[in-house]
């Protein structure tokens, strides 16, 4: 891989400055390399981060790549930040879990499942970038549908939504939800 040294360096620099995960296609376009070649370089970079003296890690999220710090170093960073970054309230966590597992979902549906109004918690989640509007539901009032963001995956260390822990969710029949929302 001696001949790809500048590209590997550029790849690392790009992952360092990127706001959101970069796919092989995006990286290939910038570096003018085939996505398959990029994948090779990614593996090389990942191996480079393996030694214990290295604090970085290459993470795969939603088919894209991102640099982060090794999980076992979290405590040092928490000392720097004085606390674990961003701790969510119980209400926010409940709303977030409902949206994560049932997305896309409306506020009314979340309220119904929790048996209580969720607007404040929902606003917090949207403000923190963990949840976003993903569309409108057909039907009266065309309520906003919510889903989780990439930031959500990053925050909870998930590679994709398929990585969500398996929950046995007892399905409420849609009739029930519908009648309750009237």
């Amino acid at each position, binding site marked *: 891989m001696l001949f790809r040294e500048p590209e590997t360096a550029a790849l690392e620099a790009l992952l360092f400055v990127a706001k959101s995960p970069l796919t092989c296609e995006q990286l290939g376009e910038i570096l003018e390399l085939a996505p398959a070649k990029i994948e090779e370089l990614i593996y090389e970079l990942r191996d480079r981060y393996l030694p214990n003296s290295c604090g970085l890690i290459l993470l795969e999220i939603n088919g894209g790549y991102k640099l982060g710090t090794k999980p076992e170093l979290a405590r040092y960073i928490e000392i720097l930040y004085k606390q674990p970054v961003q701790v969510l309230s119980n*209400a926010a*966590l409940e709303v977030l*879990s409902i949206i994560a597992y049932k997305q896309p979902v409306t506020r009314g549906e979340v309220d119904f499942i929790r048996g209580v109004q969720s607007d404040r918690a929902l606003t917090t989640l949207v403000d923190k970038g963990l949840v976003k509007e993903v569309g409108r539901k057909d039907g009266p009032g065309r309520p906003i549908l919510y889903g989780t963001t990439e930031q959500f995956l990053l925050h909870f260390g998930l590679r994709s939504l398929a990585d969500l822990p398996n929950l046995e969710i*007892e399905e*409420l029949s849609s009739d029930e939800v519908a009648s309750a929302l009237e």
Partner: protein
Amino acid sequence: MLKEREITVPQVKLPAFQGPLDLLLTLIQQEKVDIYDIPIARIADQFVEAVRQLGSMDMEVTTEFLVLAAQLLYIKSRELLPKPPKMEQSEVGEEDLRQELVERLLAYRTFKQAAQLFERIETSSGRSYYREVDVEDLLSEVPPEDPLKGIVFDDLWQAFCRVIERAEKGEEIRHVKPDEISIERVLADVLRRVILHPKGMHFYQLIREGSRMEMVVSFLALLELLKSGKVRAEQPSLLGSIMLFPTAKAYEFTEEE
């Protein structure tokens, strides 16, 4: 302020409930009973009592708590009534109400567990941290792209011609009915065209062929502009073409908004 808070501090510490379902679930768990086989009468009484306590402790008791309390009491009352020998399908049986409640509780419990899972992930030391990327800062040293990229001088010239063309056509004037032509509008139209010809325009160019009314009003407007000194007229030779020029005063009224 501090005193007030001291007064309202509850003596008994109850956990904060996320909502009525949360409270009900907690009571059921405390009783260690199967969610499918809730002793409704007892749980309903406990629920009502808990809501009463919450209220007296000045905690927020929303209508949702009261609605669920009413539901529980209703199911309880139905259970206490002697069952009719034959079940009539016309009314909703208490079994259906119970079933619906159980299903809601199960669904809520599942998500509550998921929330606890998320909380564990969030608070457990052992996750990756990321950089906060400040794109503006990154790009601060990059020279901005030329906003005129792809634009040649001819484009600018064409744009200027469009302005002149529009002024000459006098679209504003032509699209109003003749009897609505106002002197102010025509005045602006005439002045605009004179300004766009700083080296002079012919009088015959100025008066467009239009309705009789338009020609008359244009002429009146020109007289007005000459009188106020915004336009200057010259006739280089006897019976020659009259030339019109904008004066320094031409722009004077354009600032009025």
